[in-house]
């Protein structure tokens, strides 16, 4: 199943994350200042991995040439969502971990973000949230591009309204783990974001029952 999920996915699912990874690897390699390297690493892990996950998730289910054939089988909707999402999350995770290994080899210190698990949570939580938003957006509008727009809009609003969100709704701030890792309410925020992601995935699952909207 996973083998075919890979073979039947768009090639962009692999090439975009790899291209972005390569771009950041080159940038980090070219800029020797440790502080700059740390900032770039934070930017890649905390902002760009989640954004790409959100955009690719918008295309994960509906951008399928054999969608009607798939709908005519008894495959459960949850299985479809799981197969498609796990694949793109695996790609993003592989890129994120490869990048961390690369910067570690260059001597970049990520300890200001916390321990190893804290660093993983800092990129994984917003990645899941934006992937769920992109997927739910595409299924709600029955258009992949709208889902990608939703993910991009959430990302941009969160970036631009950092101060306001941290003051008024810190638990819904996606980038707390990467920008404010020492805040006391970080864990609570990550819990709320995971719950919001699960809710968006549940909505996506419900929407997928209305198959006729997607043909």
């Amino acid at each position, binding site marked *: *199943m996973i083998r*075919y999920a890979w*073979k*039947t996915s768009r090639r962009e699912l692999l090439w975009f994350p790899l291209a972005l990874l390569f771009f950041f690897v080159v940038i980090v390699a070219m800029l020797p200042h440790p502080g700059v390297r740390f900032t770039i690493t934070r930017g890649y892990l905390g902002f760009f991995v989640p954004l790409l996950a959100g955009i690719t998730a918008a295309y994960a289910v509906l951008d*399928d*040439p*054999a*969608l*009607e*054939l*798939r*709908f*005519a*089988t*008894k*495959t459960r909707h949850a299985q479809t969502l799981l197969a498609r999402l796990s694949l793109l999350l695996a790609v993003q995770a592989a890129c994120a971990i490869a990048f961390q290994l690369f910067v570690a080899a260059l001597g970049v210190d990520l300890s200001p973000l916390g321990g190893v698990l804290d660093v993983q949570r800092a990129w994984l939580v917003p990645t899941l949230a934006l992937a769920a938003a992109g997927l739910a957006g595409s299924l709600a509008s029955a258009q992949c591009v709208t889902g990608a727009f939703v993910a991009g809009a959430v990302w941009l609003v969160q970036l631009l309204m950092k101060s306001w969100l941290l003051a008024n709704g810190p638990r819904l701030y996606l980038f707390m783990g990467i920008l404010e890792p020492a805040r006391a309410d970080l864990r609570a925020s990550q819990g709320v974001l995971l719950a919001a992601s699960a809710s968006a995935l549940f909505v996506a699952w419900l929407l997928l029952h*209305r*198959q*006729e909207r997607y*043909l």
Partner: protein
Amino acid sequence: MIEIEGLSKAYRRTRALSDVHLRVGPGMFGLLGPNGAGKTTLMRILAGIVHPTHGTIRVAGNDLATESGKRATKAMLGYLPQELGMYPDLTAAQMVDYMAILKGIGDAAKRRRRVAEVLEMVALTAVADRRIKSFSGGMKRRVGIAQALVNDPRLLIVDEPTAGLDPEERIRFRNLLVRLAGDRTVILSTHIVEDIGQTCRDLAVLGRGSVLFRGSPAELSRIAEGHVWSVTRPQLDEPEPGTTIVSMLHLADAVQYRVVGAWNDPGAGALPTPPSLEDGYVRLMQTSS
């Protein structure tokens, strides 16, 4: 096998199906109708993809209004949609294998055997390991029928399967469907009258979302009895309202026309002609409009 009662389907402002009643048993069943008649909507409803607005549908006793009924129906279904999308980078064998997995055939050895069998059935064994993107339209259709058959379905739904095929491929495809029918129910939806005439003993005609006719091809032909003429003239004026010129054959110094309809004054030289299935269909469309 299939019982449809009072089925209606509306999309926002468009009524695609209106109070459809049908019963379909084993064997080949033809569903004929012009483009936009509601055939594809009916096929998709039967495949459990589209929800009806009103009415009940039972397939082998399973109620398609329930999720469990839908799943049970899909388990016995082979479906070839009108717009057949496939994964161009998969080989024919991989495509069928993948569909077998989606259809719940988990045992890899059993699946391999079944994939080989169905590819043999559709004469694609020799190209089983070639990528689908290198296939002709006819070969893709055959991969489509192979994936539809891989779960040995009791109900096979094929929507416009011969559209875009060359005459030889069409004949081969029709013969394949007839061979497959046997104990299965095969629903062949098409707007090509000839395909129905060559394959089905039982058919329905849909027009603007309603069943206009239900019976055998011979009964459909009889609808045009007394309304088909053959006329040979240098030139035929505009046909009367209510008549249709169904064919024109240019001869040396004249044109031979075949006219179907309520022709009040056919004039001298117009010969009453036995109706064909196509004449019956044309006459049915005239009387229903």
